[in-house]
């Protein structure tokens, strides 16, 4: 019986189905907010779903010189990793499975799509793919470290390495945000870098790299890539909401789901606002910020956490 429940959780809620539909919703929200703030109208609610379905039905062309098997495997691997990461991140008060150390496991699983993204550029013969891949690797190193630091700080403070454990440690408004605001900022910037959103959308800068590593992908493969990005976004936001913003605040019981949803939506709004306010950075400027500003600040925050 427990097995059936666990399976349902994995496949439906808060597992695969929720992650996919929820990430489409988050994508819509993102596009709508960015559009409204740019004095445009924005897409209707079903747009990301329609785009996904249409893209899945399009012809899948690969230029000669592409390693077909790897090119087909990479998006599947990425999507699988992103969905698996979602299993350990609480949605509301539910989590499929939780154990000490799942914080690091989730961070690792969310990195798989980034590495696959870089490889995706390298298996195509396109110059844009290779250059975009180089940039994404550089960006990955510059932003993974601050993000991890940002995630580790509350773990050190609350002495728990499980995301659900961190949510519990924050019950009753003792959000880690209030204790470590700097850590929250570092983790958020790290997340923006990881998700390759503006101002860090350098690897797939449309005006320079056409579409970066994904330039030569189309049809089903591209659909899976786009879905992976969306799921990564949702899981990344969930993770930060759980670790810093108190998740569903166990205090609230059933209302927890609504509170949690509100937090996710607000966080997404914040990311959309940042997208609207800034130009894309140059890669050396990005690396400079990552290594000269974020990492030292992260170290400082870590020391504070150890001391506390």
């Amino acid at each position: 019986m427990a097995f059936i429940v666990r399976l349902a959780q994995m496949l439906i809620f808060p597992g695969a189905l929720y992650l996919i539909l929820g990430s489409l919703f988050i994508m819509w929200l993102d596009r709508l907010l960015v559009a409204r703030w740019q004095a445009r109208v924005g897409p209707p609610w079903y747009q990301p779903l329609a785009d996904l379905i249409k893209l899945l039905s399009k012809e899948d062309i690969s230029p000669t010189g592409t390693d077909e098997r790897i090119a087909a495997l990479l998006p599947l691997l990425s999507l699988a990793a992103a969905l698996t990461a979602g299993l350990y991140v609480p949605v509301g008060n539910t989590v499929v499975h939780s154990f000490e150390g799942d914080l690091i496991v989730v961070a690792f699983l969310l990195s798989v799509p980034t590495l696959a993204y870089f490889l995706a550029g390298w298996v195509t013969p396109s110059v844009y793919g290779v250059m975009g891949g180089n940039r994404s690797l550089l960006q990955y190193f510059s932003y993974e470290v601050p993000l991890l630091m940002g995630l580790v700080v509350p773990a050190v403070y609350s002495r728990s390495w499980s995301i659900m454990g961190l949510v519990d440690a924050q019950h009753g408004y003792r959000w880690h945000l209030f204790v470590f605001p700097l850590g929250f900022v570092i983790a958020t910037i790290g997340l923006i870098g990881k998700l390759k959103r503006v101002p860090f959308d350098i690897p797939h800068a449309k005006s320079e790299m056409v579409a970066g590593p994904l330039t030569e992908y189309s049809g089903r493969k591209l659909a899976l890539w786009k879905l992976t990005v969306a799921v990564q976004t949702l899981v990344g936001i969930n993770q930060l909401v759980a670790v810093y913003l108190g998740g569903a605040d166990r205090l609230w019981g059933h209302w927890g789901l609504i509170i949690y949803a509100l937090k996710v939506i607000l966080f997404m709004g914040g990311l959309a606002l940042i997208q609207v306010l800034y130009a894309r950075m140059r890669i050396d400027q990005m690396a400079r910020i990552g290594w000269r500003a974020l990492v030292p600040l992260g170290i400082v925050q870590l020391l504070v956490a150890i001391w506390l």
Partner: protein
Amino acid sequence: MMGRMTIPIGPQHPLLKEPYSVSLEMSGEQVVAASLRVGYVHRGIEQLAQRRSYVQNLYLVERVCGICSHVHTTTYCQAVERLADLQIPERAAYIRVLLCELERIHSHLLWLGVLAEAIGFTTIFMYAWRDREIILDIMDALTGGRVSHAANVIGGVRVDVTPPQAEWLGGRLDELAGQMYLFESLLHDDRSFQGRTQGVGVIDAEMVHSFGVVGPLARASGCRMDLRRDAPYAAYSRLDFQVVTASAGDVWSLAEVRLGEIRQSISLCRQVLDGLPEGDLAVKAPRRIPAGEAVVRCEAPRGELLYYIRSDGSERPARLKIRTPTLPALMVLPRLLPGLEAADVAPVIAGTDLCIACSDR
């Protein structure tokens, strides 16, 4: 991994608004060499012009470029009017200035949007093009076309500005002037914009003279050349404006010059509306233009536009030559690119405000 690579930008590329091809040789993230190919949109306009009458050519030259169509017809008409010894009415001269300046504003706003898009600042692209709609609406109301106006005829203009129109126009210009604060604060206060445009793609004064760079590109490097001031045409000698220059010659200076010019153009438009003299709109022009030759230069949004017409006394020109201001910018571009980071290529190319349809003809 960081070896040499050749990156083709164009003829199809999201950065380029018109087809041309820039081939970049990269070593890692640095540009080592660049070469340029144009001619993808060569339509043989100069050759076509020799087979058409002067009136037909008026509509042909308007279609050399979409963004600066009015100044092309203005320059063409002035050349033909010199040959035929026609003096256009004052009212026509003022209306020509009005449309030229409105075109300058819309061209510069378009440029700002394209530059913003090139550096990933989509928000400013959307805002600039939204405000550009104000100008396009005005053009539509005055001439019937947003981009292609057919406002000039040989001997004057075809469109009139009635007092109610003038009042409405003034209101919309006020609206536009109110929006300019946003772009000016972008220039002066926005660190991400400055970070991508300052110190990038510097054109020095020596390049300006040896390549004949004109327009805002030259003025951003400190060169005070503006044909509206140096060789006034239409009604410019009766109007008051400043020539906007900057000193650094980088992409940021280009933005500074162009935003300054938008302000000046708004002021010029207001002066025209306030001081519009009464009179006819056009004088009658002959079908056969007397033999002779004429060189006319006008200040297009991108700089010095030169028309040379040689007439042999018949209904058709013996030679029509168009030299557009983008040509020197294209010649300079391959010298600006080497040494840049890959990410700087986009703002430099977008910043030079290339109009390939103009230069290919």
